[in-house]
């Protein structure tokens, strides 16, 4: 259905498919080219103006400004994204525990409500600021920009932005980060990269958490890596377990290498 002009398209408006259906969803690609009757005589004088304006441009412009701020202060900033419950906060807490003696760490916490994660991070010993998105499903560059003005991170530090737990919306919003890190976990299944390809396509590093559960889950590690390569062959994977304290060093090394290039 097209709510904009009130016409109806009863055919497959959500792109509903049977398994194995590889056809282009023509019904779904109805491009709203209907001949509406316009009684406006002005229409004859109307002119077509080519705007060619990227709809996300205001976010992208502000994101570039944030990126420039980070670069000028030699700050390494990561945007951590994942579905809810993959262990972003645990990874961040473990990172603070390990690196707080070597680095100044700031955390920008994004959650729909409350300060639960921010409280954990504060206790771990990092400077933290919480952004509550309310009804929103992602952080935007503007929120990060405002948060940065408040926390004023010092030169050479590490800024960790923990995005809202959601593998869909945050993929589209550049926050000005230096690198994007997607956290996935063994208990979520090996097909996450194929189900949420935009997030895996836009990320620079994938942390595969909860490796201690590998024997308890139907998770095929080589299939997971194949799936990642099909979506983004540049995406590096670090397998670790925060709870099992395994291979965290690979992650810390990755961070240190980027903070002090």
């Amino acid at each position, binding site marked *: 259905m097209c*709510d*904009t002009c009130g016409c109806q398209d009863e055919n497959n408006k959500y792109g509903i498919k049977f398994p194995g259906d590889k056809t282009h969803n023509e019904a779904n690609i109805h491009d709203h080219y209907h001949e509406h009757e316009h009684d406006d005589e002005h229409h004859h004088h*109307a002119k077509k*103006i080519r705007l060619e304006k990227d709809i996300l441009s205001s976010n992208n412009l502000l994101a570039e400004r944030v990126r420039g701020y980070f670069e000028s202060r030699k700050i390494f900033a990561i945007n951590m994204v994942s579905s809810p419950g993959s262990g972003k906060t645990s990874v961040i807490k473990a990172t603070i525990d390990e690196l707080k003696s070597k680095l100044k760490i700031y955390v920008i916490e994004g959650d729909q409500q409350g300060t639960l994660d921010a409280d954990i991070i504060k206790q771990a010993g990092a400077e933290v600021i919480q952004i509550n998105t309310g009804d929103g499903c992602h952080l935007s560059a503007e929120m990060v920009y405002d948060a940065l003005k408040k926390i004023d991170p010092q030169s050479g530090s590490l800024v960790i932005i923990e995005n809202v737990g959601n593998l869909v919306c945050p993929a589209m919003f550049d926050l000005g980060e230096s690198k994007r890190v997607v956290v996935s976990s063994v208990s979520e299944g090996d097909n996450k990269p194929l189900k949420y390809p935009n997030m895996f396509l836009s990320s620079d590093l994938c942390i595969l958490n909860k490796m201690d559960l590998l024997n308890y889950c139907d998770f095929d590690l080589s299939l997971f890596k194949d799936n990642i390569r099909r979506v983004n062959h540049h995406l590096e994977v670090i397998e670790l377990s925060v709870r099992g304290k395994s291979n965290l060093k690979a992650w810390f090394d990755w961070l240190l290498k980027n903070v002090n290039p």
Partner: protein
Amino acid sequence: MIMHELSIALEIVDQISEYFETSELSKVFEVEIDIGELSGVDKDNLSFMLPFAVKGSVIENSIIRFNVIKGKANCLSCHSDYDILEIYDVCPFCHNFEKQIIQGKEFKISTILAD
């Protein structure tokens, strides 16, 4: 939870309003939006959100058209161009998955018809 399509719908309204205010235009009849199949924006969610976003704006009564742009990739192994439905599709000629997406990520206001 509001999906990102609402903030995007509001963004469309803001950008056209901004252009409208600095131009000599009096009415916007049509808005044409290019939307790539791989852009991450769901056209139907966006169509659903737009009527709320346009209320009281300069495009409240405008027709909004979508040009859906199909996904295309260039194979990094055999260098053929091929159509992709999903980001993870492999090259139909050599079955390699390493690719560069060359079309289908677009998401922009392409034209407005105005007086």
